[in-house]
């Protein structure tokens, strides 16, 4: 890498001292430049976070160095950024002017004490730089750059030289054994061992060439200890440390971040187990000045239960994504496993995260933790898959508890599980709208009981039906009915519907009568016309009747949706207990006038009531009335359905015929 020109950015040339150059080159290498010299955004962001500068500052740094403009970190931008960070850490404002002067090297986390120690030495020695370099370039595959560092005059130069050759082979084997081996040494070096997080990261991604250089650096910085040990010890230390601020995964929420998110959540919604509504969250996140499409994407990623509101874990996820984005990370396409709201770290207290002692469990499965909120009795198949996943996740959480990985990040992700369950009662409300919208297309049947009930209130009044010779039919029906009715009041009604199917239909009925009018039917008035009509439809009815279930009074004509059908049912039901009376009323006028019917029905009623005890009869009749109502509704529904069925059949036939016609044409 051309270090000389690397410091130029946007035309301004910023001079770097030797130490800075070396340091920066190491850092640059650490950030995994690709062939064109651009740095991996993830690594850069990690490094930036390691500097422990506030996000705002980092943002400024990114802007000033030109990376924001370019969209990536090239060598120049990176160098300038490092200088700016050094300036920021020294307390200077983040501006290009600040970096013009001589500045200490930027601090990266973990090194604070050491650098302070070394800072005074900085002008005199190159220790600090190699120190940083050592930690950073531990993962940097840049032996050439390291060599000059190696040769840096330092206290332990010879040691270092002596160490380097044996070190390389020594490093190749996995680091952990060496780590353990040198652990006791490491304990002694508390003050000086702190490695950059990157070293910890390096531990996570061992690569042989990198390791070669790092030990050398360590030797530089320290005293007569094996650099391996040093580095390893620092790694150990990092591992021990509960607050691991960087892990090798930028998508992990650290403790401090989590606390911050918790406070922010509280400012929006005091109850941690409740939801933040979409609009509230939108306003809040818009303040982050990210472009709306990105915010939209972040929302999509973080709202796993798709309810238009954010639970606390979802909020943390969203916030974390925003923070990451502002620090230059590109948004992932799918939610990383560590950010999933159901990501659980067992043993973590839901309260403000204390020092967690349990290690982090990396959960790779695809979870939809918020999905159980959707368990709202959804009829939809797709939705039911989610609750299934959630239950799986819960069981998995349990099974995961005994497994611990050595990494530890205190993340109260157990909260989400608890929250999820507590949110169940809340979510129904949020989800109602969605549920309706989602389940609605699923109910393919256009008619339902509800619809039928609505149709019950329709006030159509079809004209009276023509009366044909009714005597014979009526007598037949009557006979039948009479026989059936003899079996009992209510049961007979059902049996009637099941067997005879014919229920006399009142010709001209007033709009669907309420239950009270049921008994006002004039049994007799309808008869003639009813039977006539029925007879006309008899054939059809029988066909439909077979299709109907017993609950619906069969026998109603479905050809026309005339309300008389319904009324006839009602009347018909009214007939049963009044059978004996009907005959008397037969000669009555055929216009079914309720007033005229009323006295008769009353008479019939009274007659019928005389037999059983009056009280019981009243109760029975109430029940009968209700049954009649429901029957009426059901018959209406049935008729409507059958009408539609007919229409659909016709359409289908026509379409099929068209298809037939067109198919040979199309195939040619």
């Amino acid at each position, binding site marked *: 890498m051309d270090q000389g020109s690397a410091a130029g950015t946007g035309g301004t040339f910023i001079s770097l001292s030797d130490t800075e150059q070396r340091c920066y080159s190491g850092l640059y290498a650490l950030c995994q430049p690709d062939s064109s010299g651009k740095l991996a955004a993830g690594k850069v962001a990690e490094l930036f976070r390691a500097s422990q500068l506030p996000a705002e500052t980092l943002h400024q740094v990114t802007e000033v160095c030109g990376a924001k403009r370019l969209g990536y970190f090239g060598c120049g931008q990176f160098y300038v950024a490092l200088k700016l960070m050094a300036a920021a850490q020294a307390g200077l404002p983040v501006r290009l002017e600040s970096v013009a002067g001589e500045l200490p090297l930027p601090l990266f986390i973990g090194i604070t004490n050491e650098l302070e120690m070394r800072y005074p030495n900085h002008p005199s020695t190159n220790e600090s730089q190699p120190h940083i370099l050592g930690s950073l370039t531990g993962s940097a595959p840049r032996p050439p750059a390291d060599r000059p560092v190696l040769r840096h005059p330092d206290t332990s130069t010879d040691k270092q030289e002596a160490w380097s050759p044996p070190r390389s082979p020594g490093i190749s084997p996995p680091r952990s054994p060496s780590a353990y081996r040198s652990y006791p040494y490491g304990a002694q070096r508390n003050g000086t061992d702190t490695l950059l997080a990157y070293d910890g990261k390096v531990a996570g991604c061992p690569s042989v060439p990198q390791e070669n250089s790092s030990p050398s650096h360590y030797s530089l910085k320290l005293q007569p200890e094996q650099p391996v040990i040093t580095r390893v010890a620092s790694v150990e230390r990092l591992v021990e440390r509960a607050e691991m601020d960087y892990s090798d995964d930028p998508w992990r929420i650290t403790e401090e971040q989590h606390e911050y998110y918790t406070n922010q959540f509280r400012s929006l919604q005091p109850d941690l187990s409740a939801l933040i509504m979409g609009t509230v969250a*939108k306003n809040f996140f818009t303040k982050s000045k990210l472009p709306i499409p990105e915010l939209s994407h972040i929302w999509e990623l973080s709202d796993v239960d*798709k309810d238009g509101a954010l639970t606390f874990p979802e909020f943390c996820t969203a916030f974390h994504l925003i923070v990451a984005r502002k620090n230059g990370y590109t948004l992932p396409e799918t939610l990383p496993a560590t950010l999933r709201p159901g990501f659980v770290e067992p043993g973590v207290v839901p309260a403000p995260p204390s020092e967690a002692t349990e290690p982090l469990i990396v959960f790779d499965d695809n979870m939809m933790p918020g999905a159980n909120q959707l368990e709202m009795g959804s009829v939809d198949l797709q939705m039911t898959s989610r609750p299934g996943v959630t239950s799986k996740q819960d069981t998995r959480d349990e099974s995961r508890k005994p497994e611990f990985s050595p990494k530890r990040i205190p993340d109260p992700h157990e909260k989400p599980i608890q929250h999820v369950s507590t949110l169940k009662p809340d979510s129904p409300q949020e989800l109602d709208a*969605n549920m309706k919208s989602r389940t609605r297309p699923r109910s393919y049947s256009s008619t339902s009981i509800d619809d039928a009930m609505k149709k019950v209130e329709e006030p159509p009044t079809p004209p009276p039906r023509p009366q044909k010779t009714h005597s014979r039919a009526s007598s037949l029906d009557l006979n039948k009915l009479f026989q059936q009715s003899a079996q009992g009041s209510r049961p007979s009604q059902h049996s009637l519907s099941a067997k005879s199917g014919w229920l006399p239909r009142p010709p001209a009925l007033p709009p669907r009568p309420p239950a009270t009018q049921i008994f006002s039917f004039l049994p007799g008035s309808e008869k003639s016309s009813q039977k006539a009509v029925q007879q006309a439809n008899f054939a059809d009815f029988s066909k439909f009747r077979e299709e109907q279930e017993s609950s619906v009074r069969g026998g109603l004509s479905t050809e026309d949706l005339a309300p008389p059908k319904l009324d006839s049912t009602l009347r018909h039901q009214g007939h049963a207990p009044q059978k004996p009376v009907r005959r008397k009323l037969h000669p009555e006028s055929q216009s079914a006038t309720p007033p005229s019917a009323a006295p008769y029905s009353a008479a019939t009623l009274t007659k019928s009531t005389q037999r059983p005890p009056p009280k019981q009869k009243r109760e029975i009749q109430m029940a009968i009335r209700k049954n009649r109502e429901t029957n009426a509704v059901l018959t209406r529904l049935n008729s409507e359905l059958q009408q539609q069925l007919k229409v659909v059949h016709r359409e289908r036939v026509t379409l099929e015929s068209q298809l037939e016609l067109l198919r040979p044409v199309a195939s040619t």
Partner: protein
Amino acid sequence: FLICVAIRANYPLYIRSVPTQGELKFHYTVHTSLDVVEEKISGVGKALADQRELYLGLLYPTEDYKVYGYVTNSKVKFVIVVDSSNTSLRDNEIRSMFRKLHNSFTDVMCNPFYNPGDPIQSKAFDSIVSTMMVQAC
């Protein structure tokens, strides 16, 4: 080939076609099919969601493709145009495609950063449509 469109108030919010050439023709087809959709939804007594409308030989016999329509409760129309040579697509499959579209669409709507009437830029929606179309073709 297969084209999926989401239309709101006669303006397409989202158009996606598998073979990306000849899109203009499909745009036209979709536009004309809107008329039929309107006619259907203004029909009497029809329930909320028209699960399907079927066109056969809409324009010319040579240009055989079928147009399926679907309307949501908020009058957002989805149109799928498929090639008739794609006879493997059955009605149920089309229905399930519409269901998925509707689901993804509600997810997009839930996003508070999405203003109704904006073109749909959601990647999740895109991915669902892509998988669907790959499946179908």
